[in-house]
């Protein structure tokens, strides 16, 4: 076991997979010589050389194009889009090419490619460097979408992503890069579509993603003290989504709160809500709550960004809202 930072865990996964499989290469802006804007690709150029660690011009469209074309012809690219906000400039390559190429050629192609990107608010990076756009990606058939919340998962999920035969978007929350977690020394992978029950409980289910997982845990512990036993679930991948784990938990608890930092309207909380009420309507004791950002871009200034981001208190409030007065007595 080693205590690795989130970015180090990702680096370790890249290194292992590049060592195992000569088809794997990485490309992106400033990932080579300088080791990446967040240190994720540090040391890889030196270890694997310039033909497998490619510093590109500022051309996200061509970067993802490079991934699509090279994946279609036998390589296993892992490209970086420095901020998820920049998927705007390469969105066609994601939406119309990477995601659809296999389908529209009737299964003629496999596209084993990974797009690593970084998302999230909390560092005062302003409206164009802080977004969480996973809901848009979840709406695109043909993609897989991964959102790890800790070092252990990040490493295991990235290895799975690189071995997957499909385009995978791997979203790293910038606020997690510095967080440390235990990572086994021996090799492991984590399957897609398997949620992690981070904490067990009986009264309310909280589903949280990325940097919201530690916040949900904080809230959950507070709530336990108040006598509300909370279960916290981290889906880890949103496509595929582990519906079963979520449904099982809700069937047990009868209550669900979903936490994400993307704006609430049209976020993945909406999808999870719709799915759960479709499949477990009669088990629900209260309306499903979404704790998410308001319908605004991510503001720059600290008090604004703090207001914008979901936090423990908002999670606690949401849980209380559907407990108190709804056949639920606080101990």
């Amino acid at each position, binding site marked *: 076991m080693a205590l690795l930072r989130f970015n180090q865990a990702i680096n370790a996964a890249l290194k292992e997979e590049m060592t195992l499989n000569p088809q794997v290469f990485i490309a992106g802006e400033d990932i080579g010589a300088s080791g990446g804007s967040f240190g994720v690709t540090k040391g890889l150029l030196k270890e694997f050389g310039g*033909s497998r660690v*490619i510093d*590109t*011009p500022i*051309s996200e*469209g*061509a*970067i*993802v*194009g*490079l*991934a*699509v*074309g*090279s*994946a*279609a*012809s*036998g*390589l296993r*690219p892992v490209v970086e889009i420095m901020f998820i906000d920049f998927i705007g400039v390469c969105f*066609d*390559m994601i939406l*119309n*090419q990477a995601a659809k*190429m*296999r*389908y*529209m*050629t*009737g*299964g*003629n*192609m*496999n*596209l084993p490619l990974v797009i690593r990107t970084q998302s999230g608010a909390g560092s005062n990076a302003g409206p164009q460097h802080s977004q969480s756009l996973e809901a848009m990606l979840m709406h695109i*058939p*043909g993609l*897989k979408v991964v959102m790890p919340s800790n070092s252990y998962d990040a490493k295991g999920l990235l290895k*799975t992503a690189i*071995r*997957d*035969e*499909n385009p995978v978007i791997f979203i790293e929350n910038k606020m997690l890069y510095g967080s440390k977690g235990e990572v086994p020394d021996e090799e492991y992978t984590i*399957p897609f579509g398997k949620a992690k029950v981070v904490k067990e409980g009986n009264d309310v289910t909280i589903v949280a993603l990325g940097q919201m997982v530690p916040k949900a845990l904080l809230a959950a512990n507070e709530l336990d003290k108040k006598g509300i036993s909370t279960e916290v679930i981290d889906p880890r991948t949103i496509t595929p989504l582990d519906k079963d784990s979520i449904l099982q938990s809700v069937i047990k608890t009868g209550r669900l709160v979903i936490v994400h930092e993307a704006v609430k309207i049209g976020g993945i909380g909406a999808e999870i809500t719709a799915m759960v009420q479709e499949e477990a309507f009669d088990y629900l004791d209260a309306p499903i709550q979404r704790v998410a950002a308001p319908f605004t871009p991510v503001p720059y200034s600290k008090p604004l960004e703090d207001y914008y981001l979901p936090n423990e208190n908002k999670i606690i409030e949401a849980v209380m809202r559907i407990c108190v007065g709804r056949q639920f007595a606080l101990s």
Partner: protein
Amino acid sequence: MEVNKQHLLGIYQTMVMIRRFEERMSQLFASGHIPGFLHLSIGQEAVAAGVCAHLRENDYITSTHRGHGHCIAKGANVKKMMAELFGKQTGYCKGKGGSMHVADVDIGILGANGIVGAGLPIAVGAALSAKSQGNGQVAVSFFGEGASGSGYFHEALNMAAVLKLPIIFLCESNQYAEFTSRSTHLPVLTVAERSKAYGLEGFCVDGNNALEVFEKLSFIIETVRAGNGPVIVECFTNRWTGHYEGDPQRYRPEGEVQEWKKKDPILALEKVMTNQYKIVNPQLEEIRKFVEKELDEAEQFSKNSPLPQGEETLEDVYAATSGR
């Protein structure tokens, strides 16, 4: 490479195949056998044929919405192509893609594409694979002069130049982007000269002259194979039909198509073959018959093939993953 009879016969057969394939498609579209959009390249056959005559099976191409010619020239199975246009289960894409998405990875066809310009960066990726093989493979990216306005064009050229990849950016300049003529949307005379913005060479070729296409590309492709980095090649030509089938072409000046028809690339090649290379007419006739027979079979095959079942909609979204 010195042109010989064999080359010419091959190119001729490809061109006749493209022409007749598309003429049939036009009729079958009119008679309601083919739905959706159909973009024909009748009049432009010399480009696809002359370029692809130099390509090996493991070379890559990316194509466009107007891609039948490129696919046929790269060796696509016309039965599967036609069946795809019919929307049949036996088509290249099992009826899921249609005319704009024909692909055959086994022979390096990385797909026609419905997004203008998108093939260029994809071809750059294929060129990276090619380079990593180190065996002289190349990628050819077909695109129209209209596509040269798109950001993809620039990013692909720039990236390929920076990475010195073995790729030929092949512009089929047919003088129109949809209904808009070249002079309205292009601020330079040629797309080829845009190569300068990337430190590359650009070549202009008469795209209605199959012999010229073949000869010039012979040298150019060899240079790229040798590892000298990307080039732009612009082939000037014209489409005889509308942007898509059904386009009334009101935007075209009177008589323009007639003028281009006088430069019919197939007739021109026939002349060269019979006059310069002493290929006799019966030999050409034989090829035409062969093509017609192939297409008869393809048409029968397409007509007789089953349509896909509704539930097949749900297949082919994701590849199974070994999960090793």
